[in-house]
């Protein structure tokens, strides 16, 4: 059998893939969860900044992502470089809800021995997005 795919059909398909992958803003779902928790009055960049620097048992978010999220970080055990977290300098950040949730789950467990609350997640995202270049 000989299947032929028109190049333009391929291009459209690839554009679709690129468009859907990573298109989801993580914040709306987190905000919905925070509202459901009750007493929600909005996210705060200041609370997010404090949370980002606060140490759990050994580490804080800043341990691997550096105290200034506009700078490249370094995995504290393996030494592997980590791209900056602030969307102002790294526009790919915080654009893929599934990726963001996956890393919140892992990193919060590593730092705090528990999952982050919706409020904490929303605060951190708000903080990172508040940073200019």
């Amino acid at each position: 059998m000989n299947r032929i795919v028109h190049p333009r059909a391929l291009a459209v398909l690839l554009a679709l893939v690129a468009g859907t992958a990573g298109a989801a803003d993580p914040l709306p779902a987190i905000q919905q969860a925070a509202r459901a928790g009750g007493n929600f009055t909005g996210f705060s960049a200041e609370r997010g900044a404090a949370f980002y620097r606060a140490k759990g048992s050994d580490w804080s978010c800043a341990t691997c992502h550096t105290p200034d999220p506009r700078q490249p970080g370094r995995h504290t055990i393996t030494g592997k470089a980590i791209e900056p977290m602030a969307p102002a300098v790294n526009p790919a950040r915080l654009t893929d809800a599934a990726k963001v949730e996956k890393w919140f789950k892992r990193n919060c467990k590593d730092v705090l021995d528990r999952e982050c609350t919706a409020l904490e997640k929303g605060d951190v995202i708000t903080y990172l997005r508040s940073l200019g270049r």
Partner: protein
Amino acid sequence: MNTHRIAVSLLAALAGITAAGGATKAPPPAPNLAWQEECGSCHLAYPPRFLPAASWQRVMAGLGDHFGTDASIEPAVAKEITTWLAANARKPKAGKPEPVPPPLRITETRWFIGEHDEISAARFKSPAVGGAANCAACHRTADQGNYSERNIKLPPK
């Protein structure tokens, strides 16, 4: 719904289409995209050929507590990666018994220790290297899966 998974399966489908229309030659063993993405984020993605299948199965079964970090991934993705790692793992040598339990670390295998016996423990631990598991500190093309002797350059002491 994980959008990466969709992208991966679509690309795989595309690859299938081109293969069907092309030559009879078997396609080269492609690196698994899920493995690259999931196992290459905290450290370079360690090539499957450095551990036997039993080791990979043990590593993959314990991702919730993976060398002191949480590296857990979706079960369906984990299954795909495990299958790919096992298929491309180091084959056991006839007549040579495999250690039990299978090692979790490449850096603890007899093969690795033998290959690196000229490097002292202190050198591996030095800040410039940061541990034996940081292959890329010395193997400058390790991120491309190339560990050939020509591309080895130890960092200055």
